[in-house]
């Protein structure tokens, strides 16, 4: 018997017509590490709420079928009792931390359970140790970084000693290195403490190598499940709109072109191990013959500088320097990605481009003219800024007036406003929501409304802050195509992101930031393979680049970021080595 047994689970939220779960059967054995993935809105989160009794105790609605967790029928035991068996960790760490210091927050659940002080201390010690945040014990919770906060959230749940952990997209707000650390913590808990883990995650590239089993959700059902090697190779998984780890993708392509790779690898190390026998002989080949002439496409842009940042420095309060002497030239029509870990100064930099922040030292020019005297409203006409969270700006009664808000502010004529709104609705494919309230739309749709409300006034420069956060694979693909489309219209595009895989697919110019300084500036290939700078900026290179950085001994170029290019190079190498 499994530690979790779900049979015929159907659930409909109150006041909603269509069910969120349409018949789920799943057995999970003790000690398994499960990756649960699927497109946004497929029922993953709803399923996680069923496991600790939030459904049906906190959310009413219509529940059918049976859910047995660690021998307990979820319907018959309150969430507070189930919490001792299954711990639920959510996406936003800020909304699950209750105390002002780390130690006290870990204690919160134990205090609620009425556990005596001495035992509480033991549990806290253990939980802090298991998540590797013992050194943060006396820190204030609002001084922690996002990754530290999420590890605290895990520790706080862990202290109650549940046998099962369920994590609902725990790394959405984290940079890749922070995410990797979370996965390592989970791996340790799984291996050393035999805790069953159910990880809901879009970041399959990083997570795949840790898990035993992958369950793919789609439209309220389980579409398919099995070992990660199997699931990610299946066509159904691809069709479900789930991201495929780049290493698996590469393996599939190589097999398709006649290379035999007996086992499907999930990490760069495993991949190299698998292909080693085939390419060993090629070691002596010179780089020249192996490097097919793939002229890299960095994008066409005229050489006329549009925005010039000169010696920019900025501090939010004395002593906390967010930007130090930053100089940067952005050309017309360029596609630029600003990367770096959280707190590196990326957002501070782009807030200067439309005047939200003003330089404390240095200056910024737009088409050669200093912007110091221009108001935010005047600058925003030229530089449109789209923020990370659409909920920080949506407020109108319907999508149409949401989009016309800025146009009215800028004083466009009535007919022009109407035309523009129609144009923007079409551009983002949200015409059908024209009269809907933005609040009833899904997360991805709200993001598109926010984007439309900026693009409507047709700014020359479009800045997007973390556009891929919380987006599933298909939404990201759509965004990438959309950005391409904007580029063909001659727009200058700047994205602020730590999504390396997304950047690797777009191949923009990259500006790498760390501690308020620019520490790297070049093409995607140049920056992604600059190990030293990437390290300093705490940005992990994309999977494919990780593979190729280890293949340089075989005479292969190290600067490969794209799956197709990687496949061609390896086939070429195999043919050359006979």
């Amino acid at each position: 018997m499994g530690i979790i047994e779900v049979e015929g689970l159907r659930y409909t939220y109150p006041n909603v017509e269509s069910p969120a779960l349409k018949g789920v059967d799943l057995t999970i054995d003790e000690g398994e590490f499960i990756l649960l993935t699927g497109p946004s809105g497929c029922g993953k989160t709803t399923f996680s709420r069923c496991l600790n009794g939030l459904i049906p105790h906190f959310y009413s609605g219509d529940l059918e079928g049976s859910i047995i967790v660690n021998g307990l029928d979820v319907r018959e035991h309150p969430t507070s009792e189930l919490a001792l068996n299954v711990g639920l960790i959510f996406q936003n760490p800020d909304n699950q931390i209750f105390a002002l210091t780390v130690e006290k927050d870990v204690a919160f659940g134990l205090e609620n359970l009425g556990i005596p002080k001495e035992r509480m201390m033991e549990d806290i010690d253990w939980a802090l140790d298991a998540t590797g945040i013992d050194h943060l014990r006396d820190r204030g919770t609002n001084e922690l970084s996002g990754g530290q906060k999420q590890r605290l959230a895990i520790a706080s749940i862990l202290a109650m000693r549940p046998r099962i952990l369920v994590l609902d997209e725990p790394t959405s707000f984290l940079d890749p290195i922070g995410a990797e650390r979370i996965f390592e913590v989970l791996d340790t808990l799984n291996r050393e403490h035999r805790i069953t883990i159910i990880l809901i995650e879009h970041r399959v590239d990083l997570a795949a190598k840790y898990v035993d089993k992958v369950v793919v959700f789609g439209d309220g059902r389980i579409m398919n499940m099995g070992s990660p090697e199997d699931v990610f190779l299946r066509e159904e998984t691809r069709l479900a709109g789930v991201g495929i780890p780049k290493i698996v993708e590469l393996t599939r392509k190589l097999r398709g072109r006649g290379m035999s790779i007996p086992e499907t690898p999930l990490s760069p190390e495993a991949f190299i191990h698998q292909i080693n026998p085939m390419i060993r002989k090629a070691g002596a080949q010179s780089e020249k013959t192996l490097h097919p002439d793939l002229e890299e496409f960095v994008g066409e842009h005229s050489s006329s500088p549009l925005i010039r940042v000169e010696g920019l420095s900025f501090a939010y309060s004395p002593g906390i320097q967010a930007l130090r002497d930053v100089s940067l030239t952005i050309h017309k029509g360029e596609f630029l990605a600003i990367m770096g870990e959280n707190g590196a100064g990326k957002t501070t930099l782009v807030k200067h481009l439309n005047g939200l922040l003003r330089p404390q030292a240095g200056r910024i020019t737009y088409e050669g003219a200093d912007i110091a005297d221009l108001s935010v409203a005047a600058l925003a006409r030229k530089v449109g800024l789209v923020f990370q969270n659409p909920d920080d700006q949506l407020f109108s009664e319907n999508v149409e007036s949401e989009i016309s808000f800025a146009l009215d502010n800028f004083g466009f004529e009535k007919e022009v406003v109407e035309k523009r709104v129609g144009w923007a609705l079409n551009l983002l494919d949200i015409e059908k929501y024209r009269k809907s309230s933005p609040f009833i739309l899904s997360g991805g749709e709200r993001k598109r409304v926010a984007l439309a409300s900026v693009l409507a006034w047709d700014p020359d420069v479009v800045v997007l802050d973390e556009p891929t956060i919380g987006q599933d694979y298909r939404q990201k693909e759509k965004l990438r195509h959309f950005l391409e489309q904007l580029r063909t219209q001659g727009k200058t595009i700047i994205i602020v992101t730590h999504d390396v895989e997304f950047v690797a697919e777009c191949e923009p110019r990259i500006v790498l930031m760390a501690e308020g300084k620019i520490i790297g500036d070049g093409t995607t290939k140049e920056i992604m393979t600059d190990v030293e700078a990437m390290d300093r900026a705490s940005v992990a290179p994309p999977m494919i680049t990780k593979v190729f950085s280890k293949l340089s001994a075989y005479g292969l170029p190290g600067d490969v970021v794209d799956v197709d290019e990687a496949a061609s190079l390896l086939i070429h190498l195999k043919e050359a080595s006979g």
Partner: protein
Amino acid sequence: MSLLEGLRFTRGDSPIHEIDPRVKFLLTMVIFITAILFTQLLPLLFILLIQVPLVLIAKIQREWAQSLRGGLFLAVIILVTNLVSIYFFSGKTLTTENLEYALAITVRFLVLITSFSLFFLTTSPDKLSLALEKARIPFEFNFAFITAIRFVPVLADEAQSIIDAQRSRGLELDKGSFLMRIRKYIPILLPLIINSIRRSLELAEAMESRAFGATSDRTNLYELRMSGKDYAVLVVVLLALASVLYIKYVFPPFRQLLPPGTLI
């Protein structure tokens, strides 16, 4: 707002921080009562000055200065309205006594700012909540209080993000007539309210997952225990209270001790 800045707790480890919150609260209350009892400049100046070493020991002089600066504007208003009203009520004349009284009332205000800063800046909300718990305030209220404090910085960040996003969409908060400007806050307040509702739902889910309300016999990681030092401070505070009451009600009034007409 900077007046409130002076009330935000920052962690530190001075002897003042370590005093039991109940004793410290009593100390604050004694200062408060003293300030209310006296209207003469000399005793008010005295209790203002007596707090300075405490501020220095607690190493909160910067925050204290900040809240004084924040209170300066109000202090000037208090001084001026007092002087003006006395001037008109007493037939357009001003004596040194009138001036002394106005000054005393102003100093009283500064005393109050200082004593509250001293309390809130050196008492962690966690400890304060423990004290409330000891005072048999139901845990739900206590929890709401801690949560409010915990989310002040989070909400401040969020408000800033919303303002940034709407300004980027051409919203100009400082343009137009007074009424128009008030209307311009709608695009800022609405997302803030909706996000807060959304957040409270998420918080509730997280609370459930942490067994909130599982038992009425809730335990607490920390306990308040009076140390020897706390008792010593308690004795000093009680003695101070006794002498204040003695001076006010038994001891001959201050003015008789001083040569008439001196301005203090």
